[in-house]
Structures are given as C-alpha cells and as structure tokens.
C-alpha cells in the first residue's frame, strides 16, 4: 500500500508537511536571507523580535532568522554527509559480512560491537580532539561512528535475502558474487534501509548540534544550529529568543523525519 493512503498514516502526512516546510526554509536560505547572516550591528545588540527582525537579533546584532536559515543549511549538509559516509561504508561492511558470513563476519562484527560499546559522543570527542575541530572532521568522526548501525541493518537483511530462491537462482545462472550482492540483494533492502537513513539523518542533526554546542564542530563566525545554541546559552534569561529559533528548528527537523520514517516503516 502507498504511504498516506489510510487513516493511520496521519503521522506520515504530518511529518511530510513539517519536513517540506523546514526544507523550504533551508533551501531558500542557500539563495536568499533577509539580512547578511554574518553582518554585525552594534546598535541592534540583543533586540527582541520585531517586524524588521522577525526572530530578533543576537549579541552581535546579527539577524537570527537569517542565521537560522543559513545555519540549518550548514547543519543539514553536514548531517547528510555524515549519513552518506556512515551508510555507504556501513552498507559495504554489512553486505560483505552478511553475504559471506564465516570467520570474516565474526571478526568484523566483533569490531563493530567494540565501536558501539563506546558512547558515540565520547568517541566523536576523542576523534575531534585528536584531529582538531571543524566541519570535515565532524563528518568523518560521526560518519565512522554511524557505520555499525548501518552495517547491522544491512547485514541482517543480507542474511535473510541470500537464502531466498531468487538469489539461489542468480547463483545458478552463474552470476558473480558482486552482481548477486548489488543487483539482487541490495535493491531489496530498501524497505529497512530507507527508514534507517531518515533516522540516521535525525541522529546526525542532533550529533552535529551536540558537538557544535560543545564548541567542537562548526567554527565561528559560520552559523550552524548547534553553534547558535551554544552562543545563546549565555543570554538565555535576557534574550530567550536567541535560543528559541534554532532550538525550534532542530525540533521540527527531527520530528518531521521521525514521523516520515515511522510512516515508511509501517508501510506493508
């Protein structure tokens, strides 16, 4: 059944609407922002929301709406890259281990367990403190930390699918392992892989925000949602609007994608 075609998929539709709204704002941010997001104005420091500055301005007098639009874009690009790195490596690892099995599978999966047994934020902290902060290092660090979860999802699907008759038949026809893995099995893992990509995106947004909040991610003056939250914490009581705008953006992003992935997972 197509998602959204029955009553239970109210959540799915809600998620789609929230996400499209958020994406619209972010995509606009790449081409147009009301003000230059990095332009400071001492006269406008910490001014509350007004018609000129819808979400107010920050401690340097920068327009918060512009910074949220631009910053969310930065966050999204980083999150997508993290998911891309994690999912592509994870898919390759999961495909190889699930398909071939045996001692190779055992060895790699134990390594996977080791990687998952550390709290991911801690591992990212270690990585960043060794290689230094910055967007690229964050992408690499979080991407690698995301590998085990994708490897596991893909591996379990490969183990199930490799026993199916159509895979056996491909083997009988003389298809090579590579062809069987990527032409026959991989396209059939979409059912579980796509929802986990969406959830992964959510986790990546949160992880980026977390690391930037700790000052290890995106470096100033570049804006990102986590970076903004981190800067806003000093002004929480005097100018709460500074924290609210990026916070709400994160919440809407995560909520929207969660609802969509939930809807996709329910689809039978």
């Amino acid at each position: 059944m197509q998602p959204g075609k029955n009553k239970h998929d109210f959540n799915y539709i809600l998620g789609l609407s929230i996400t499209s709204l958020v994406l619209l704002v972010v995509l606009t941010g790449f081409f147009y922002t009301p003000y230059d997001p990095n332009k400071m104005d001492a006269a406008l420091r910490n001014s509350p929301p007004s018609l000129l500055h819808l979400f107010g301005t920050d401690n340097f007098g920068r327009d918060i709406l512009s910074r949220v639009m631009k910053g969310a874009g930065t966050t999204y690009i980083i999150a997508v890259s993290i998911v891309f790195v994690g999912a592509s490596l994870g898919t390759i690892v999961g495909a190889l281990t699930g398909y071939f099995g045996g001692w190779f599978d055992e060895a790699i999966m134990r390594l996977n367990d080791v990687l998952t047994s550390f709290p991911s934020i801690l591992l990212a902290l270690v990585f960043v403190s060794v290689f230094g902060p910055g967007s690229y290092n964050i992408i690499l660090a979080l991407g690698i930390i995301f590998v085990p979860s994708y490897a596991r999802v893909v591996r379990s699907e490969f183990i199930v699918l490799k026993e199916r008759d159509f895979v056996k038949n491909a083997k009988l026809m003389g298809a090579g392992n590579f062809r069987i893995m990527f032409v026959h099995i991989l396209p059939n893992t979409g059912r579980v892989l796509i929802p986990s990509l969406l959830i992964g995106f959510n986790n990546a947004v949160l992880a980026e925000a977390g690391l930037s909040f700790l000052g290890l991610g995106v470096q100033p003056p570049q804006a990102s949602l986590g970076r903004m939250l981190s800067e806003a914490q000093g002004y929480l009581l005097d100018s709460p609007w500074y924290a609210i705008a990026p916070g709400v953006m994160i919440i809407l992003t995560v909520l929207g994608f969660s609802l969509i992935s939930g809807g996709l997972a329910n689809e039978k």
Partner: protein
Amino acid sequence: MAVLEKAAGNETLLEVENLKKYFLAKKGMLSSQTAWLKAVDDVSFNINKGETLGLVGESGCGKTTIGRTILHLYEPTSGTVKFKGRKIDKHSIKTLRRHMQIIFQDPFASLNPRMTVGDIIGEPLDIHNLAKTKNERKDRILALLEMVGLNPEHANRYPHEFSGGQRQRIGIARALAVEPEFIVCDEPISALDVSIQAQVINMLEDLQQELGLTYLFIAHDLSVVKHISDRVGVMYLGKLVELSPSGKLYKNPLHPYTKALLSAIPVPDPNLSRSRKRIILEGDIPSPINPPSGCRFRTRCPHAKPICAEAEPVLKELEKDHFCACHLFDS
C-alpha cells in the same frame, strides 16, 4: 509420442553415483555435540537424454537436496555427479551452468521483486553474453515470453503484478533463456492452483518435445509425476528405495513404501474408492539425524522381518529396468 525417440537415443545425460549430502546439525542449543543430518545417503541413478525422471517421496526425504546438489548449489559430501561424462565440481560447474537450470517451487520467492520481468528473463543472457546487441536481447526476451504463453507487454511489469501461474511461467522462461539441456523442476507446480497445474505441466511437456529437454521432476504428488515421467524414483529418508519405468511402477509397485504411497492417491470414483484397500503407514518418518539401522523403512513397514534391522537392503534389478531395495525380495 516421444517414446520412440527416447528409445532410439538412449544416451546418458546425467549420472549420479553414490551421492551423499550430509548437513551438520547441532544436538540441542547448549550442547556442543554435533551430528550429521543425512539428507541424501548414497543415491545412484542415471538420467537419459530427453527423458523425464520423476522423484517422489514425502517431505524431508531429500529429493530437493538431490536436485540442488546435482546443480552444485550444495557441495556433495561424497559421490559424484557427471553431466555428459564430465564430473561436476567447483570448477566445471562454471561452464556447465549454462546447460543446467532449475525451476523453483515457490514462484513468489524465486523472482526478484525489484526487477522487471524483461530484466529477470534477460539476466541470464547478460551473464553469459548470449545477446550481442540490445535489440537481440529484446527479441530474445519477447520470444521467450511468447514461448511460455505470456504477452510482450508483460516485459515491463514487475513480478507482483502476476498470478502464481504466470510467475511460474516467468521462472520457466528465465530457465530457458540460456537454452539448457537439463532442467531440475523442484516441485514446480506444488504451489499452484489445481486448475493452473495442468496448464504448467502441459507446457513443460510441450517445451520438452520442442527443445529436446531432459527433466528431473521432483514432486510429492504421485499422480502428477505419473503423468509427466518416463521413469520414477521413490525416495525414503535419503535413500532411493525403488526406481522403475513409470508404467511398471504404477501397475506393479514392489517396495512396501511405494505401495503405501500409491494407495494414498485419491481416486475420483467414490465406489472404487470405498472398495479400495488403503495402506495406512503407522508412525512418523524417523529423524534423518539418527535413522533406523538396516532398512530405514522397517519401523513403519508392515512386512518387517528380523533381517531388516540388521542389513541394509541394496537396490537390485528385480524385473527389467525395475529396481527395488527391499529384503522381501531376497531369494
């Protein structure tokens, strides 16, 4: 009928000699003790070119395992399979794949749900480089679709849009794409509606005549096997217990197990059905991990004698072409 041709060309296509396939089985979840599940235990037979050998037996008797071991989907534990005199092993199978195909039981599991019918049928052509150009590939796919009674426009659809019978036809078209000589039909009609079964069976027979195919036809339905097979092998618990031309087997079954199986075929005549004596077998099929000593059928055999527990009966030619493994015929 093709009987004459078959008699003329008594060339052996496939030889199975002392084939054994054991699977490793754990004895319980916590135990590290292992045991061998003897799925196929010392089975030998030949298949002649152009004939259909039926293989029957109840679930778990090893008939599917034989089919898959012949095609080298499983590595045999011991014994050999020869195709046209060439031993099938890891290396030779690569060149022999083209000549040996399979039709699976479940038409819903055997087609890749993410590929169009055209790509499913075209894939073997791609793998073996049988179509030089795109147009040649397309023409071949359309010809194959026509051969199995499907329409050209079906090529762009996905498997879920088809019924079980149509899907089985797609599977047959895929098997035929590489122009094989030998096809293992692994219960190809068991999952189909009775009304569709006859269509598929007749199509398989027509294709056999047209293309000179040789079948190993695996089934648990004796009446279907009788219809399509030239010779029939009966299996029980990994052993071949009787092998005979199909007419002789149905007229004069020798092995007590075959007799019981044949008596279980329903007859579409209530009067005859009432007067007919049915042989009901007692008990369940024993575990292939720990089969009974001597004759494996002795635990359920109505005629079991002391010798049956001691010595394993060997397959002997009791009449011309009619083999049976049973101590009842020891002279």
